C-alpha cells in the first residue's frame, strides 16, 4: 500500500500550484471591490459628514475602493451616474437619493444589471418593495421629528405654557422625504392629547438654508404674532431662526428652538444657550453602515432590507458627549 506522502513529486507540485492559484484568485477578487457612490449634493453639512464617514471607513478596509460622485441635486444626473457605474462594471452601488420619489428608475437599472444597490440616509419611495440584492441604510425619520417635538412639548409644559402655545415650522426642501416626514412627525406629536396645547401659526420652506431661514423668520416676526416655539427640520434653519430672533431682541429663554442633525455649529449654539433641542443623526454611522451592507450584498450574504441606525436626542444635559466626538 502506498502512503499519501509518497505521492509522485509532480502530483504534489500540481496540488501546490493549484492551491496557490486558487488563493491568488480569491485574493485578487477580494482586491477588486469597486463601489460606486452617488451623493445627492456635496455642499451639504450633514451629507458631508456621511460622505466622510464612508471614505474613512473604506480606508480601513482592505481592497475596497470608492468612486464618489456629486449629483448636485440633479435627479437626471444621478440616474446617469448610476447607469455609468453599471456600465463601468462596479461591484456595488450606493445611492443617496436627490429625490426620494424618483428611486424606481435607479432600482430598475441596478437590478437588471444584477448590481447590488444600497440606498443611504434618504428613504426611497420603494423601500418596501426593494428586490433582492438591494437594501436601505438610514435612520428612521419618524424618530427624528418625534424626539424633537416631544422634547419641545415637554419644555413648554415645564415653562408653564400648557394653557396654550403657538409655534412656527421651518421646512426643508419638500422634494426630500426627510423634510416631509420630519414635518409630519411634529404635526403628529402636536395632534396628541399631551401636546395639542400647541398650535402651528404657519409652516413654510426655507430649503434647508440658514440664510433663507433667517429671512423667513424675520418676515414672520414683522407680523407681530406672538409665538413660543420654532420647529426646524434641520439645524442650519434652526440657527438661521436663532440669528433672526437675536437680531430682533427676542430672548432665547422665551422661545424654544429645535433642530435636527446635531452639527458642530448646532452643538455650539446649544452650549451658548440658544438652541434648545436637536437630534443626533449618526450620519457617519450611516455612511460606514452602507459600505458594510454593500460588501455583504456583494458576497451574497443575507441582509435586512432596511437597516435603521437610531437617532439620539441631544439637549443641554448631554451636549458635551456629542461635542467630544
Amino acid at each position, binding site marked *: 500500500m502506498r502512503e499519501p506522502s509518497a505521492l509522485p513529486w509532480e502530483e504534489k507540485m500540481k496540488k501546490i500550484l493549484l492551491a496557490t492559484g486558487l488563493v491568488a484568485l480569491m485574493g485578487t477578487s477580494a482586491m477588486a471591490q469597486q463601489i460606486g457612490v452617488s451623493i445627492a*449634493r*456635496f*455642499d*451639504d*453639512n450633514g451629507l*458631508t459628514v456621511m*460622505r*466622510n464617514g464612508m471614505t474613512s471607513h473604506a480606508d480601513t478596509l482592505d481592497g475596497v475602493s470608492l468612486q464618489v460622485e*456629486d449629483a448636485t441635486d440633479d435627479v437626471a444626473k444621478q440616474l446617469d451616474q448610476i447607469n455609468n457605474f453599471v456600465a463601468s462594471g462596479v461591484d456595488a452601488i450606493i445611492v443617496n437619493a436627490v429625490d426620494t420619489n424618483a428611486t424606481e428608475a435607479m432600482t430598475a437599472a441596478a437590478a437588471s444589471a444584477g448590481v447590488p444597490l444600497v440606498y443611504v440616509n434618504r428613504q426611497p419611495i420603494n423601500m418596501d418593495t426593494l428586490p433582492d440584492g438591494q437594501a436601505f441604510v438610514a435612520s428612521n425619520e419618524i424618530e427624528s421629528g418625534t424626539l424633537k417635538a416631544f422634547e419641545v412639548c415637554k419644555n413648554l409644559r415645564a415653562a408653564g405654557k400648557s394653557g396654550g402655545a403657538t409655534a412656527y415650522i421651518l421646512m426643508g426642501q419638500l422634494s426630500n422625504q426627510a423634510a416631509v416626514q420630519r414635518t409630519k412627525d411634529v404635526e403628529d406629536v402636536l395632534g396628541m392629547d399631551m401636546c395639542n396645547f400647541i398650535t402651528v401659526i*404657519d409652516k*413654510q*420652506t426655507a430649503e434647508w438654508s*440658514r*440664510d433663507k431661514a*433667517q*429671512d*423667513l423668520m*424675520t*418676515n*414672520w*416676526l*414683522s*407680523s*407681530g404674532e406672538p409665538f413660543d416655539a420654532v420647529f426646524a427640520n434641520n439645524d442650519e434653519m434652526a*440657527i*438661521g431662526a436663532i*440669528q433672526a430672533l437675536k*437680531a*430682533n431682541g427676542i430672548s432665547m429663554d422665551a422661545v424654544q428652538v429645535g433642530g435636527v442633525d446635531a452639527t*458642530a*455649529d448646532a452643538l*455650539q449654539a446649544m*452650549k*451658548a444657550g440658544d438652541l434648545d433641542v436637536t437630534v443626533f443623526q449618526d450620519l457617519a454611522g450611516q455612511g460606514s453602515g452602507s459600505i458594510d451592507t454593500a460588501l455583504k450584498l456583494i458576497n451574497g450574504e443575507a441582509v435586512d432590507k432596511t437597516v435603521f441606525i437610531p437617532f439620539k436626542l441631544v439637549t443641554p444635559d448631554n451636549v458635551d458627549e456629542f*461635542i467630544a466626538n
Partner: protein
Amino acid sequence: MADKSHGIGGLSFDSSKRQWPNEINVFFALILIVVIFEILGAMVMGQSFLFDSNDRFDSIFNEARLRIIILQVAIIGIIAIGVTQVIITAGIDLSSGSVLGATAMIVMSFAQVAEVNGNPNPKALFGPAFLDLPVIIPILVGLAVGTLAGVINGALVAFARIPPFIVTLGMMLFARGVALWWSDGRPVSFPTETYGLIGKGMTPVYIFIALAILFHFIMKYTVYGKHTYAIGSNEDAARMSGINVARHLVLVYAIAGMLAGLSAIVITSKNLTAQSGMGFTYELEAIAMAVIGGVSLFGGRGSIIGTVIGALIIGVITSGFTFLRLGAYYQEMALGCIIVGAVALDQWQQKRAASRS
C-alpha cells in the same frame, strides 16, 4: 416761449418732447404691487401689509416689515449693482453666485475666531497663526478674490473675444468647484466678533444703499459711466471714437467681481458661516432685479436706481407672500410673470416713445 438753450434754428424748446425717465415706470409698478398686497391683506388677513395696524411701532408704518423687505434683498442687491453695469455694456455675468460661494469659503478661513464657548475653534481650517486676524485681512482677501475672478472674466471677453455668456458660464462652474474643493465641502463657521459686525442688523442695507448711491453717481457723472453706456449702445462707434473698449470691459467685469466678493463678506458675516453652496442662483436673481428695474439685455439702457427699485419689488413680493401665508412656489411663479411683464411693458414704452417723436 422760444427757449434757445436747447433748440436751434428758430425752434422753441419743446419740453413735451423730453423723454420720460424709465425709472418712474418701475417706481409706479412698485407702488402698485404694494397696494395689491395691502388690499389682499385687508381681505385675507384682516391686517395691513405696510402700515402699523397693531400699533407696535412709533411711526405709522410697520417698521419691522419695511426693514425685512429691504434687508432680504440687500446682499443680492450688492451683486446686482455690478451686474447692472455689465449688462449695460451688452454683456452678461452668470458667475456672480458661484464667485460669492468661492469667496465666502476663502474669506471665512481668514476670519476664524480662536475660541468658541471657551474651547478652541472646532472649524479652524488653517493653523493657529490664522486665527483672530484683524478684520481688514479677510475683507481685503474677499475683495481681491472677487476682483480677480472679474478680471479673468473681463480679459477673456475683451481680449480673447469669447462671448460673455460662455466666459461667465465657465467661471460659474469653475468657482463652484473651487468652493467645494476649498474645504472638501465642509462648512467654515465661527468668525471673530468684529467680523460679525459687518452683516449685523441693518448694516447690509446701509452697505447696499451706500454702494447704490456711489455707483449711481459714477454711472451718471463720470467718463467711466458714459463709456459703459456707449460701449453697450454701439461698441464700434465707441471704438471709432477712440475709447479703449478692451480695457474698459475688463474694468467693468472686475467691478462686478469685486461686488460679488463684497457680497460674500456680508453674507458670511450675516450668517456667521460659509457654506460651499452659498450664492446658488444668486446671479439669476441679480439679473432679475436689473431687468425688472429697466436694464436692457441688449445694452445701452438702464440705471442703478432702476435696479434698486427692481430689488425692492422682489423684496415686497417675498414679504408679501409670507404675509399672506402663501407658499414659496406661488412666489416663484409670480416672480417669473413679473420679469416677463416688466420687459414687455418696457418694450411697449420704447415703441410709444419712438412713435411720438
